[in-house]
């Protein structure tokens, strides 16, 4: 009898422990990179709608960070806003409101940068999400994917993207792409290959009506 009770108690304990440890592995971590270089800074209004979608979809316990892509993006200073939502829905709602305000303020006051360091942003995103320990990790790149590094910046480090979903959003075609579409294809293929070689999953969403595909898988 005592043995049975001991087994039952152990089972309950195991379930409780696994239940607690399970919460992190089920949470989502989203790191959104906003390209502020050149003319693409004008597209940031669209980024706001994406962010609103994310705020509506993310649940208590999930993590969201928004960072800008500028000349040197591998820096904590480039993180515009970051939050891990409280477990209580009512608190999480208030946090979402505050987060939206913060990003809106950034978008209204943003200045375009000379260079575009996408790789640095991705590296920073990997570091941040790994630190948060989210179960499902998403790096959203709101950019035309044309990287332009300032002199002296080295970004030939391979990405460690196991368990990461990298999604390029609103990849606009540049004037040169219109003249030679191969340039656009090459750009996309290059990033795709880099993410694949890092062990991550790559996808593109250009139509912002299909944002539900971000978490479809």
């Amino acid at each position: 009898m005592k043995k049975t009770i001991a087994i039952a108690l152990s089972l309950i304990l195991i379930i409780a422990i696994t239940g607690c440890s399970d919460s992190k592995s089920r949470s989502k971590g989203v790191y959104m990179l906003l390209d502020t270089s050149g003319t693409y800074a004008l597209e940031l209004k669209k980024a706001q709608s994406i962010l609103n979608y994310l705020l509506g979809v993310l649940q208590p316990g999930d993590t969201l960070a928004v960072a800008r892509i500028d000349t040197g993006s591998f820096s904590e200073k480039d993180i515009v806003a970051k939050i891990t939502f409280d477990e209580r829905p009512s608190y999480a709602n208030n946090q979402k409101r505050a987060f939206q305000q913060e990003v809106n303020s950034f978008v209204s006051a943003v200045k375009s940068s000379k260079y575009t360091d996408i790789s640095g942003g991705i590296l920073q995103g990997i570091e941040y999400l790994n630190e948060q320990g989210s179960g499902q990790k998403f790096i959203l790149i709101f950019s035309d994917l044309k990287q332009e590094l300032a002199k002296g910046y080295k970004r030939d480090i391979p990405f460690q993207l196991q368990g990461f979903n990298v999604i390029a959003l609103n990849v606009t075609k540049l004037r040169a792409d219109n003249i030679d579409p191969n340039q656009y294809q090459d750009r996309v293929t290059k990033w795709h290959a880099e993410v694949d070689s890092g062990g991550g999953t790559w996808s593109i969403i250009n139509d912002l009506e299909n944002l539900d595909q971000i978490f479809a898988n």
Partner: protein
Amino acid sequence: MPLANMLSITSNTFLSMLIWIVLLLAALYFARKPFHRAMGSFSRIIHNAMRLTAASVLSAEKKLVQRNREVLMAAGLESAERLVEREFDRINAAVVRDLEGYPNIQRQLSELTTRLDEDYSQSADVPSELPNWIPIIESIANIKQSGDSMVANMLGEINRTLTEQHKASIENYRSSNAARHSILNKMLPVWRRVQKALNDIGKSIGNLNQRAKSIDRYMDEYEQIRMQSDKAARMLSSSSLTQFFIAGLVLMIAFGGALINFNLIALPMSEMVGGASYIGPYKTSDVAGLVIILIELTMGLFLMESLRITRLFPIIGSMDDKMRMRMIWITFTLLAVLAGVESALAFMRDRIAQDMEALRQTLAGVEQAKAATSLIPTVGQMIMGFILPFALSFVAIPLESFVSSSRTVLGIVAAGALRLLAFILRLIGNLGYYAGRLVINMYDLIIFPSIWLEGVITGSKSKTKEPVEEQLFEDGGITEEAVDNFNDTIEYKEPQE
């Protein structure tokens, strides 16, 4: 070496083929008897094995049916006992209630009878008759006047006095009669009260008679069940099936109620236990909500048990009344507290839902719609949150019916399945038997030239000496049993076992 070359005995292909066919027919002819015996044995093995298995299955089915019948009868006896017990309780209550009041009624009736008697006696008092003044007055009036005024005056005075006294006497007589009538009038409500008291007694006795008839009826049913008659078995089986389906339907409705209840409290529970933690694959808040509902159901179950409405836990029903009353109050209080908690959670849910909707509108960039000022949805949710736990507590009643009737229904289904299995086994056995016969006949059909030749050579005499295939099958004595009925199978096979 190719096979064609090996088969070519002569250079002529047709001749080679013919020789091979003749050799083959000869070989098949010589192997005919062993083949017939082997095939006959094989088909008999299949047939007998299947029939034995079928008999065993049917035996199990018979035992199961017997067991079902016992269970059904036991349940029926218990139910009949409960009914009789309830009727006796009612009779007891009626007798206690009526007999308690009986001395009072008797006293009332006695008092009323005494009063009636007294009133009757009073009304029987005859008023004093009028004095016989009239002849005296007439005789005085007839006295001849002598002209003496003094006499005239005296007579006049006598006449007046007599007349006045006469009037007074009449008045007295009338008032006496009026008093008697009044007494009689007063007797009327007393009579009515007596009649009412007697009617009440009559009703009580009538009620007792009715209960006694019900008890007689239940006792008849009880006797039928005790005798385990087929009529009782049919009645109980039908009743059990009806109970099963009705209880199942009510449980499904209750499940719907529990689901609504769950939806009412799952969201606000995330505010209490957090919305991001999980137990296994389920959210902790959902599990917590489910646990609350299950606790409510359990409390409801215990409450019904304590009230002796259901009898799922005999230990609760057999508690002494004091302990049972305590249990009733404890479970009811817990249920009320949980209902209050649910009501509060429902209120919180409404607030969270409003907040979420406002956030969605903000994120969507649309102008925020004015919040509904009506409190009806909020109050409605709170009332539902409060009522549903109490409503769910009544699930214990259909649950008990479902559990008790499911034993019978499962037994019937299992018996049916066994019967079907026995049928399939018998079918396979018979198919095996006839397949054996078919193969033997096909064999003979293939080698018919050899058989024909044998007939030609040996003539009709030898035919009778050889065991034909029917004889091979009849040896086992199974040809006729292939079409017998199920009930004979056990009787037939049991000696073999």
